C-alpha cells in the first residue's frame, strides 16, 4: 500500500487515488455511510414537509401554488446540476494528476454553487415579503426547514471545497489530500441529488396544487 507522503508523478499516480491507502479506503467507505445517514435525515424532513404542506392557520396565508415560480427554480436547478457536472470534470483531472485543471474546475463548481445560493436567498426573501415566513405557519416552518437544510448543506459544501483548494494550493496532489477532494465531490453530488427531489416534491408537486 502506498504511503501518504510519497511524491508522485503523472506516471506513478495510482488509478484510484481516492482508495489507495487504508486511511483513504476508510474515509471513502465512512463517507458513503455518512451519506446513508444524511438520506434518512432528508427523508424525515421530506416526510415532515409533506405532512405539513399547505397547513396554515387561516386563508390569509399563501399556499404552495400561490408561491412557487417555475423560472426561478428551473434556473437554480440548472445551476446546481451543472455544478455537479463540473465537479465530475474536477475529479477526472484529479485522477489524471492534473492539479491546476482540477482546481480550475473546482472553482467553477464553487461559483455555480454560490450562484445557486444567491438565487435561493433571493427566493426566500421574496417569499417572506409575500407573508410566507418561517414563523408564520406550520407550512412555512416545514418549507424553510427542508429547503433551508439543503441550502445549509450547499453553503457548507462551498466552504469545504474552498478550504480544500486554499489549503492544498501550494503543495499539489498527494495520497493524503486526494481522498479529501474525492469525498468533497461525493458530498456535492449528494446535495445535487437531494435538490432533484426537492425540485420534484416541493416545487413541481407544489405548482400542480
Amino acid at each position, binding site marked *: 500500500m502506498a504511503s501518504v507522503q510519497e511524491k508522485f508523478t503523472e506516471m506513478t499516480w495510482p488509478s484510484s487515488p481516492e482508495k489507495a491507502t487504508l486511511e483513504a479506503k476508510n474515509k471513502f467507505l*465512512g463517507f458513503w455511510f455518512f451519506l446513508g*445517514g444524511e438520506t434518512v*435525515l432528508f427523508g424525515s424532513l421530506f416526510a415532515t414537509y409533506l405532512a*405539513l404542506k399547505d397547513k*396554515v392557520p387561516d386563508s390569509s396565508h399563501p399556499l404552495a401554488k400561490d408561491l412557487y415560480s417555475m423560472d426561478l427554480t428551473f434556473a437554480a436547478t440548472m445551476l446546481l446540476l451543472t455544478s455537479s457536472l463540473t465537479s465530475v470534470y474536477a475529479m477526472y483531472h484529479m485522477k489524471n494528476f492534473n492539479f491546476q485543471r482540477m482546481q480550475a474546475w473546482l472553482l467553477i463548481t464553487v461559483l455555480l454553487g454560490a450562484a445557486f445560493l444567491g438565487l435561493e436567498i433571493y427566493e426566500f426573501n421574496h417569499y417572506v415579503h409575500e407573508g410566507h415566513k*418561517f414563523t408564520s405557519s*406550520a407550512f412555512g416552518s*416545514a418549507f424553510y*426547514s427542508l429547503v433551508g437544510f439543503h441550502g445549509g448543506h450547499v453553503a457548507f459544501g462551498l466552504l469545504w471545497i474552498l478550504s480544500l483548494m486554499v489549503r492544498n494550493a501550494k503543495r499539489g496532489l498527494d495520497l493524503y489530500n486526494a481522498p479529501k477532494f474525492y469525498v468533497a465531490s461525493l458530498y456535492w453530488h449528494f446535495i445535487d441529488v437531494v435538490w432533484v427531489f426537492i425540485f420534484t416534491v416541493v416545487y413541481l408537486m407544489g405548482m400542480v396544487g
Partner: protein
Amino acid sequence: MSTYAHKKGFGATIWDYLTTVDHKKIGILYLMAGGFFFLVGGLEALFIRVQLAVPNNDFVSAGLYNEILTMHGTTMIFLAAMPLIFAFMNAAVPLQIGARDVAFPFLNSLGFWLFFFGGVFLNCSWFLGGAPDAGWTSYASLTMEAHTHGVDFYILGLQISGIGTLIGGINFLVTIVNMRAPGMTYMRMPLFTWSSFVTSALILFAFPALTVGLFLLMFDRLFGANFFDVAAGGNTIIWEHLFWIFGHPEVYILILPAFGIFSEIFATFSRKRLFGYSSMVFATVLIGFLGFMVWAHHMFTVGMGPIANAIFAVATMAIAVPTGIKIFNWLFTMWGGNIKFTTPMLYAVAFIPSFVAGGVTGIMNAVAAADYQYHDSYFVVAHFHYVIVGGVVLALLAGTHYYWPKMFGTLLNETLGKITFWLFLIGFHLTFFIQHFLGLMGMPRRVFTYLPNQGWETGNLISSIGAFFMGIAVIILLINVVMTQVKNVRVGNDPWGDGRSLEWAIPSPPPFYNFKQLPLVRGLDPFWIEKMEGKTEMTPAEPLGDIHMPNPSFLPVTISFGLFVAAFGALYHVDGKDWALPVLFVGMGITLISMLLRSVKDDHGFHIHKEDFENEDKGGRA
C-alpha cells in the same frame, strides 16, 4: 514512538485520557462515564420507587417526580446503556477482528466527548431551573406546554450526544468492513462483532430521525417555528412518528450487542462452539431489518386506524421468530457443553428466562386490540424493564465481569460478583414482575402517586422493596471494583481459560498497538482452533514490521466543549439575555476553530519501529 506512553503521574494520566485516540482507553472512558450515569439513573429509579411505595406519598412533589422519571428514562437509555455498549464495542471489537485500532481513531474520541458533554449538559438542568419533565419520549404537545428550560436541556443535550453516537456508529461500520485481519471473513466474525455491526447500521439509519425530530422541537421552542402548534397548522403526531422511527430501532441498538455479549459468554463457558452460528447471524440481521418496520406499535392508541394497526401488529409479531431462533440456539450451545458457572455465565443463564418473559409480553403488546388495555399502563413498564434490564443490563453486568480482565488486566472477585448477581436478579424480578399485574389492574404509567383503595398498594410496595435489592447489588459491584483494583492481581492472556476469539490471544490489557503482527484467522473461533492444535498464540499473518499509529489529540475535547458552551447560549437566547448570543458565538467559535485546526494541520500519525519491539521484548511494556 509516542512519548505519552512512558509518562507517569496523575496529571499525565489525565492528560493521556483527555487526548487519547486508543480504542481501549476510549472504551474505559465510556465505561466510566456510562457507569457514572448508570448510578445517577439508578438513584433516580430509587427515588421513583420510594415515592410510589405507599399511596398519597409526598416524598417528592408532582413536578419533581416528572423530572425524575424523565431523567431516569433519558439517562438510562442515552447516557448509561448506549455508552456502556460502546464501552464494550470499543474494548472488544477491534481485538476480535484482529485490528490495531478503529478506522477513525480521532472520530472515535470525538464521539465519546460529544456524548459526554451532551450528557453533562442534560444533567446541568438539575441545577439550572429544573430538569426536563415530559417523559423520555417528550411528546410534542406536552413539551410545547413546558414553561421551564428543562425540555430545552433535553433537546440540546440529546442533539449533542446523538451526533457523538452517530459518529461512533459510522466508525464501527467502517472498522468492521475494512480492518479485519487476514482470513477474518464476515462469516468468521464473533457474534459480538456481528451484533455491533448491525447495531452500528441501526444507529446510522435511526439516529437521523431523532436528529430531525429534535431540530423541529428546537425550532418550535427556541426559534418560533410552528411544527407542533396546532393553531398554526402544526401536527404533534409528526413528533411521535419521528421519535419512534428512531425509538424502536434504538431498542434493538441496545439489545443486539447484549445478544452478542451473551453469545460470547455462552460459547466460552460451555466450552463449545456457538450452536447454529449462521442462523444466529441471519437472525441478528433480520431483527435489525425488521426493527425499522414496527415503530408504530408504540402508537396503537393514537388513532392511526385499524389498517395501520393491524399491519404493524403482524409485523411486530414477526420479530419474535428470529428472537426465538436465538434463544434456542443459546440453549443448544449449552446442550452437551461443559458449563462453568462463572459470574458472567450466571448472568447469561439468568438472562434466558428473564428475557423470554420480556419477549412474550412483547408479543402480547403486539396484539393491537389488546394493547389498547396495556398501552401506557404499568404492564408496559414491566414489559420494557424485563427486556431492557433482563436483557441489556444483565448483559452489561455480564460484560463488565467478562471483559474486565481484558480492559484492566485484573479479574473481578467472583464471590462478590455472585452476590451482586443474586441480589440483582432477585431484586429485578421482585420489582418488575408484579408491575405486569399493576398495569392490568388499571394503573397508568408515569403517575407521581396514586390514591388508596384502588388495589395497588401491595404491588407497589413489593416493587419498591425489590428496587433496593438492585441498589445494594450495584453498591457491592462498586466495592468489588475498588477492591480488585487495589489488590491489582495481574492476569494473563486468557484469564477465563476457555477464550475462543482473538482478544484472548493477546495480553490483558493489550499493548496499545494490539497486535505486534496481525494474526492469521483460519476459522470461526480462531484462538480456539490454535489452542486445539496445542499452540498458545496466533499464527502471524505478516512479518514483524513497522506499525503505523495515530497521534493523540486534544481537539475532540475542545470541539465538544464548544458545542456545550454554545448550547447554553442557544438555550438562554429565548429569555432575551444579553450574554446569550455572545456565548452562542463563542461556543460555536471554539468548535469551528478546533475543526479548522484539525483540517489544516496534517496528521500523519507516527510509526513504531521494528527495533522498538526488540527492546520491548527485553523488558517492560511500551
